[in-house]
Each structure stands twice: as structure tokens, then as C-alpha cells.
């Protein structure tokens, strides 16, 4: 059963994510802050991380992704570097911010726009999990 770390500060959004994730048999680990998310990423070694872009401050999500993908060999998150990250964003459609590993803008593997379409979410997760096998 793949383990999914959900880093999201809005408990209602976590509830919305739980529905399709549990229905698909994923194990869920939730973290409500960026700090807690980093700690749980290290401890629980998830198969995939769902990361909210706008936690606490507008940049907390970005910082978490940068920490997890740090190229510094001494980084305490070096073991987490290959865990796929799916970012939740409400701003992709309303800004020209670009996402994706190839573009060097933001080190995440894919993104899902809020409001979440559960089918799109599951499809993107499956693709990332398949790729990282």
C-alpha cells in the first residue's frame, strides 16, 4: 500500500484529499506545517508527497520543496530527494508561475490546481508512483 504524505495546513482540504486517497487504498500521513512535513518526510519515507503551495505564508510550500530537493550532499533530507512531489496550487491558473522539474523554476514533479478534481489527482499520483518504481 503506497504511503502518501499530505503536507497541507487546511484540515478541510485534507478531508477532501482523504476521500479519493482512502478509496484507492493509499495510506495517508498528514502534516499541517512545512516544518512538520519535512520531519515526517524524513521519518516515514513516503512514496509520494502532496504539498500545498500556500501554507502559512505564501512561500512555505516552495521552501519545503527546495529543502527536499536540495543538491547539498550534507542535507538532512538527502534520502528524500527522489520522492515524487505533487504540488497543490490555486495560483497556477491566475499567475504565470511555471512548475515542473524540467523548467528549473520549481522542483516539483507535477501540480494539481485547486479546486481539486479527485480523478485528476488520482491519475497524476498513479503516474508519478509508476514512474518512481
Amino acid at each position, binding site marked *: 500500500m503506497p504511503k502518501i504524505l499530505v503536507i497541507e495546513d487546511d484540515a*478541510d482540504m485534507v478531508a477532501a484529499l482523504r476521500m479519493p486517497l482512502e478509496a484507492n487504498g493509499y495510506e495517508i500521513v498528514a502534516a499541517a506545517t512545512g516544518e512538520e512535513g519535512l520531519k515526517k518526510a524524513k521519518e516515514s519515507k513516503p512514496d509520494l508527497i502532496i504539498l500545498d503551495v500556500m501554507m502559512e505564508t505564501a512561500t512555505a510550500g516552495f521552501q519545503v520543496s527546495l529543502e527536499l530537493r536540495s543538491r547539498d550532499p550534507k542535507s538532512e533530507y538527502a534520502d528524500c530527494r527522489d520522492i515524487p512531489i505533487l504540488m497543490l496550487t490555486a495560483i497556477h491558473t491566475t499567475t504565470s508561475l511555471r512548475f515542473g522539474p524540467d523548467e528549473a523554476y520549481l522542483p516539483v514533479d507535477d501540480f494539481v490546481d485547486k479546486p481539486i478534481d479527485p480523478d485528476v489527482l488520482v491519475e497524476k499520483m498513479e503516474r508519478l508512483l509508476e514512474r518512481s518504481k
Partner: protein
Amino acid sequence: MEKLEQVLDRLVAGVQTALRGDGAAVRLLNGDGRHLVLGAASGLAAGREGTERVPLEGCPLDEEALAGAPVVVVDARDDKRAACVPEQCRAAVCVSLVHSGEPVGTLHVYGKKPGSFDEDDVASLVALGDLGAAAIASARAANAREKLEASKAHFVRVTTHELRSPVTVAQSLVRGVLKGYAGELSEKQMDVFTRVAGRLDHLENLVNDLLSLAAGRAPELAEKEGPVMLRASVGRAVLLFQPRADDKGVSLRQETCCEGLVIWGTEEGLDSVFSNLVSNAVKYTPSGGRVLVTMRATGDEVVVQVADTGIGIPAEAIPHLFEEFYRAPNAKAADEAGTGLGLAIVRDLVERYSGTIDVDSEEGKGSTFTVTLPIYRFDG
């Protein structure tokens, strides 16, 4: 619209030239009406007066002029009122600036020679003072309007960001339920949740449109402006709504031209203009109808037209079409989900890029929206 400083600079320069004076100054009354602040100065008056406010009692010339009649100083050396006259000048005339019965400030002209100004000069200064007072009042009003618009836009931006988050969370929850991830739904539950989802989608559209509207009015957006390829932007809008047109059985076609043509703006803004227009055309054109997007360059301008054979706009609705939240009655009847903000966003953006938008429409026959934008040339 001219800024207040520009109006004042032009006023003193104009006064000095018209009256062949050696200097001129305008002083403005502050809010309490008891103090004067230098507005602008030219010639020998320039750089002489400080920018700090001075009490009216310390300026006998201004005080007297504000009491009614123009004050003429023939020779400053023999005149106790002439404390504020520049050192190298001997003659002065001071008139009050009054707009709609309210004193605004005072206007001064100075001459090096004693007796520089005659009765005609005084009459001219009075006339220039009247014009100046009107110009100052209008610049102040424009300033106040601009400030109000900016703070309104800021308020809308902040509140809608706050609104957007709970709406998207609620949408995500309801979508999960509707897709059966919270268990199987009865027909009745499905109906209820579908209605909730519809309302939430409408709310999301409204919030997004409000954000666009506020963003379009944000002064800081000008920094992001640059050359944008027009054809690509129009093409993206057509591409975006092609599936919807196909589903509906509406023919959506684009006649392209103007390759490499560039206008000054932002890509997002321009995309928003054409997406809104094409989306409306498809939305309000019934099955079997046509939407045609054309472009043509004429001299320094490019004209983009979005023409449809849709429901058209009633004549009485056309004057209100670009107002925020206005929706023509037949549009309301045809589509419940519209926000009435799309065309306000379009107009704001087009005007921001120094263009114009016009509409030609007949109810029941169709509408043509025409956007005219200046072509940007790299050589200036």
C-alpha cells in the same frame, strides 16, 4: 489626465510668458485654509521660496488678494505688503485662485522694473487665475479618483484571495462526494450536491473575475508590461474554446494575418481580452451558428474583430455593457453562470494598452466586438 504638479508648472510658466514677467509663483491653500504652501515657481521666483507651509497672516499680499480684489505692487521698496516678492524684483501682481466659490490659492507674477504691470496685465492675470483654478480643481479630483480606484482594487484583491481559498476547498470536498469517493449517493443526494457544486463553481468564477478586474487596475502591473505577440494570443483564445464550440455545434473560425505583429501589454492581459470575447461569442451563439475571429493591420493600428451570429444585445443594454456586474437581460436568461465582469475586465485591459473597444449588435442577429490596439514597433 495631467498631474497636479504638471498643471502648476504649466500655469506659472504660462503666466510669466503671457505677462512678460521675470518670475511667477502659485501658492496653494492647505486644508485648514489658514496656511499657504508653494505649488510651483518660475523665473526669479524659482528656488527662492521654501516648500514648508506658511501662515496666511505672514503673507499680506496673498491675504489681501484672497479677501477679494487683485493686489498690485508698483514698487516693492515703497510697499510694506511686498515681503514675499523676490529680491531682484520690484513689481508684483497677486490674484486669488477661486474655483466654484472656494479659494484654492494665489497666483503671483513679478517684474524687475517698478510699475512693470498695467491694468490689462492685471485683467489677464485674473483670467489666467480662473483657468488655473479650474485646472487645479480638476487635477485634484483626478488624483483623488485614482487613489480611490487603487485602494478599491487593493481591497478587492485582498478580499478575493481570502474568499478564493474556502471556495476551492468546498469545491474539492463536494467534487469528492459527487464522484462517489464518500460512498454511493442516492438520486436525491446527487441532485442536491450537483446544485451545491454549481453554485460553488459560480462563486469561484466570480472570485476569479474579481481578481482579474482588480489585477488589471493594479498600478504595479505596468512594470510587467512588454511587447506581446498578438496573433499567438488570439490563437490561444480560439484554441481554448474550440472544444466547447464543437460540443455545442457552433462553427468557430479564425482568419489569421499579422504574423510577428507585436503590441505593448502583458501576455496574460491580452489572453484575458480575447478569451473573454471568444468565450462570450461561443456562449451566446446557439447551435448551428458561427463565430469568426478576424485581424487586420491598418497603419499604426491593428483591429481584431470577434463576430458571432448569436442572440445579440438589446439596444438599451449596449450603453451599460462594459459596466461591472451588468448583464443584458437576454444574456442572463441564456446563461445563469455569467458574472457580468468579463467585459469590464476586457475594457480595462484594452484601455490600459491604449486601445479601444466597440460593439455593434442587433438583438437576435448577432454581435461584433472590435478591439483596436496600437502596434508596437521596436524602433520606437
